Structure formats: C-alpha cells, structure tokens
C-alpha cells in the first residue's frame, strides 16, 4: 500500500530531483496515511533517502542496468510497485523518467499525470495541479485509475527534510530483453547539466559571435551554473544544439535564469518560464524579455558581464 518513488542516481549518487520526488512521495504518504518505499538502481549509499521521508529502499544492483534503458527501468519500477502493492508511484520529470513514464503507465494500467507542481489537492478523487500550454497555464487533473503515476516537475515542490531511517533491502526484478540498445553516450561529465542546474546562464545573438562565450562560461563557473543559449545561436552553430533552450529545445526550470543578449521571443520564454527568478541583461530597453523578467540590467553585455563576474567573485569570497 505504500507510496513508491523512483529515486534516480548517476554514478551511484542520488540526483537532486531524487530527493525532491522523495519529499513529494512523503507528502502523499502523509495524506494517505501510509509509508514511502523508494526503488533505486545501482545507487551506492541509500541512507540519504531517509532524510527525506523514505521508510524503505528497494535496492537494485544489476550490471545490465548500467546504462539507462527506458523499457528495462520501467520494468524494474513496475515490479517494485507490484511487490509493494503501491497505489501511487512518484517519478521525476528528468529526460529519463519522462521516457520511461508512458511505458510504466501502460504496464501498470495506471493513469499518469506529468508536470505536477504541487502535492495532491485531494486524494479522492486523486487531484493534482499540473502545468499546461508550456507553462502558460495550470490544469487541475484527476487520475481515475486504481494505480496512479505522478510526474513531479523539477524544482517545483522543493526538498522537504523528514527524518526517518530508511531500511534497505536488495531487490532483484527480472529484466526482459530490450529492443533498444545504447551504442555510445556523448556527455560532458565535468559540467552541470541544464536539467540539474540550480542556475542557468544563457546567452543569445547579442553576444555577436562564438568567440565571445568565454565570459559566459566564466560567469557560469563562478555561479556553479550550466550554460545555455537561444535558438538562433544554436542554429548559427555558435553553440551545440544540446545548449539550446526554448520551446523546441530543452526546458529550463532552474532557481535562477540569467539571459544575456537574448531578446525574449515567445518561443524562448515558453521554454524557460518555469524558472523561478529571471535576470535579463540587454542593451535594448524595449526587449520583450524585460516584461518577463524579475530583475533587469539595461546595458552592454561586454561591459556588464565582466564587471558582474568580478563582483560575484568578491561576493563569494566575502560570503565564504
């Protein structure tokens, strides 16, 4: 009967979203008067989950699951849900979890609500608030099946500490053959990803050319941020496609989004407006982005950004 949560890890370490979905699962379990069971794949140390309300951990260690495979991972979660008799399954909205969710939903005959931003407003009928129209609206959705899957938007619910001591047991689901096999992964391992970043520093055509990105990378480094770019910049080949954020690029839901030399076309805003605090630096005071921003600096990026880097470095030293 417990609430099951899939807590994602990378290289054995839990992602921040894992702790967030655990926090969410605990809130649902409190509403339903039950406990939280987490399922993890190849995680090194699961005790951390106890701090976020997890009572029991099903720990899967399996070398065939070293690389993410949506079908296989969906199968792991499905078998865990069946073993636990879970009526609610909570997942994140990372690219991996979004990939496996519909496969899992069909496997469990479960209704699935994605992009959920708050704890259920009601448990009977089970009602959640989710975003729609690319963050331009919310939709109250009921899930009417016996088993329910909730996909919690990254950075929407936050981390809630709930001291519990999580017991851990090994779990060995049977993994069927998958028809999709990963041949190679091309991923920068030393950089924080746009999906996981607390802060994203993004730049647009106002930077005039790819040779000017040094200061963007430096600003990102000072802030521990991921770098991103607007669509024209990736179309021009100044930056890799994987940095393109916006409606047809990657979605951003960071705490802080800094847009430099980006005018703020509606397609760009659609992809980033789930971010909590938006800062715009632009020479043009009429740039539409200022209407969507929380803080703005009207000025030349080539003057503002280097000064900002120096001042942030000093701030970091003062607050260290």
């Amino acid at each position: 009967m417990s609430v099951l949560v899939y807590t994602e890890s990378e290289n054995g370490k839990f992602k921040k979203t894992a702790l967030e979905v655990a926090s969410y699962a605990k809130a649902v379990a409190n509403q339903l008067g039950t406990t939280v069971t987490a399922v993890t794949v190849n995680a090194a140390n699961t005790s951390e989950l106890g701090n976020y309300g997890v009572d029991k951990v099903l720990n899967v260690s399996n070398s065939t699951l070293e690389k993410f495979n949506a079908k296989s991972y969906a199968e792991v979660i499905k078998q865990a849900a069946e073993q636990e008799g879970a009526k609610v399954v909570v997942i994140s909205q990372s690219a991996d979890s979004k990939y496996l969710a519909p496969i899992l939903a069909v496997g469990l005959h479960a209704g699935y609500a994605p992009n959920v931003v708050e704890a259920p407003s009601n448990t009977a009928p089970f009602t959640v608030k989710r975003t729609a129209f690319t963050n331009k609206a919310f939709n109250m959705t009921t899930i009417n099946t016996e088993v329910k899957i909730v996909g919690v938007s990254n950075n929407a619910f936050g981390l809630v500490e709930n001291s519990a001591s999580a017991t851990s047991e090994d779990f060995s689901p049977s993994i069927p053959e998958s028809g999709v096999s990963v041949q190679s992964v091309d991923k920068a391992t030393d950089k924080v990803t746009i999906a996981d970043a607390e802060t994203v520093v993004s730049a647009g055509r106002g930077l005039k050319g790819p040779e000017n990105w040094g200061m963007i990378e430096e600003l990102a480094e000072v802030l521990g941020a991921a770098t991103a770019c607007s669509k024209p910049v990736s179309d021009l080949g100044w930056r890799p496609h994987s940095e393109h954020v916006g409606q047809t690029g990657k979605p951003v839901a960071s705490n802080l989004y800094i847009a430099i030399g980006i005018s703020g076309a509606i397609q760009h805003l659609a992809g980033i407006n789930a971010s909590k605090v938006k800062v715009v630096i632009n020479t043009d005071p009429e740039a539409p982005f200022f209407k969507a921003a929380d803080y703005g600096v009207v000025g030349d990026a080539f003057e503002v950004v280097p000064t900002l880097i120096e001042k942030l470095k000093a701030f970091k030293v003062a607050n260290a």
Partner: protein
Amino acid sequence: MKILVCISHVPDTTSKINFTDGDSKFDTNGVQFVINPNDEFGLTRAMWFKEKQGASVDVVNVGGVETEPTLRKALAIGADAAIRVNTEAKDGFQVAKELAKVVQDGGYDLVIAGRESIDYNGAMVPGMLSELIGANFVTNCISLDIEGTNATAIREIDGGKETVTTSLPLVIGGQKGLVEESDLRIPNMRGIMMARKKPLTIVEATDAETETASIEFKKPAPKGAVTLVDAGNLDELINLLHNEAKVI
C-alpha cells in the same frame, strides 16, 4: 516501409491562452492552430524517407472536424493520405489507444510522433502507443536512419546525446534535429492543390477509455514588474539576488 506520422493540432505559440465554460475548456476564439512543431520535424524527416527510400507516409490525428485543416496542411507538405479518428481527444491514454488501432489496421512499420505537444506537454502518447502495439520506442530523437528493418537513432539526453540501435516496428518521439528548421517546408500552391485531392479518411473511434480527466484550468498569478538595476551599480543586483530573491 509504411510510415505513420502523428499530427497534433495545437494553438500557435503566440496564441493568447484563455479559458471558457467556467475555466473548464480552452478558448479557441481567435486562436490560430498549427501542426505541433515537434511533429513537423518528424513529418519532414518522413518526407526524406519517402523521397530517398520509397516509403509511404500517412498522417493521423485524433480529434474533431476542426483539426482537418491541419491534416490538409500535412498533405500539402507531402504526406500521401490522412486519417482522422473522429472523437474528442480527452487524455493521453485514450489517444494512444485510438492510434494503436490505426497502426494495427494499417500495418505501419514506423510511427513518428513529436516528443511532446506544445499544448498539454504530456510527452506520453508515443510511449504509450509503443507499449500498446509492442513496438520499440525512442524519444527525444534528433537523428534517425533506417536500413531494412534496422534503425539507428541519436537521442538527446540530459547533458548530451546517445546513439541507439533498434528495429522496426518502431515509434519515435521526434524533435528539432530530426531535420533542421531550415529544412521545414512551406506548402506551395501545387502542394495545396494536390492536398485537396488526397484522401482524408474519417474513422470512427473505438471509444477507448480515459484514465485521467481535466477538471479546471487556472492562469498563473500576474507577474510583477521588472526591477531595473543600473548597469553601473551591479552590487545592487547581487544584493537583490542574495537578500531578496535568495538565489545566490
């Protein structure tokens, strides 16, 4: 190779989002509908398979008669035939189930959908469809090649990309990268004329069940005005981000 491209009929990105009937329905008044951008990249890649590998390309939508202009546009871009499953799309599972029947009846080898629609952003129909018909599934797909029944795809992942191999039958969740924006085709007059003569078949729905229901829409609280900071006073910006917004 028989390809089916799933076409979502969605409000253009620049549309004003309003609701009607006690905030229970999307207000379509004055809204321009388009082919979902993620689907259009997939449709354009399908055209490549048609022209270079002799594939046939059909398009499908689950929806009412109001979606037909969007299907006609897909025909004008170059699809061979269109199918409309005549029912109101209510949730992802119901749509996936209706599509599963179309795929099975039509014997399609490859289904190309968008990674998500820009209205509900659920990103669930392609994956559910693949499970219902027992096909392989690759989403966030930015490159796709097919040889015989073998497929090689590149997909975006958090922080990079990966190359996968798989086989038909296959469902793709496509996005920008399958083709580039500059490859997208604007229907020309000849295409539009020909599209009028191409078959648009209406099939009755199977009345697939729903699993979720939309109760009410809400608009976000209006955003406050931007706080402007003088470019010569960036200490103030840092102060605001630290003490007011508490994000650094």
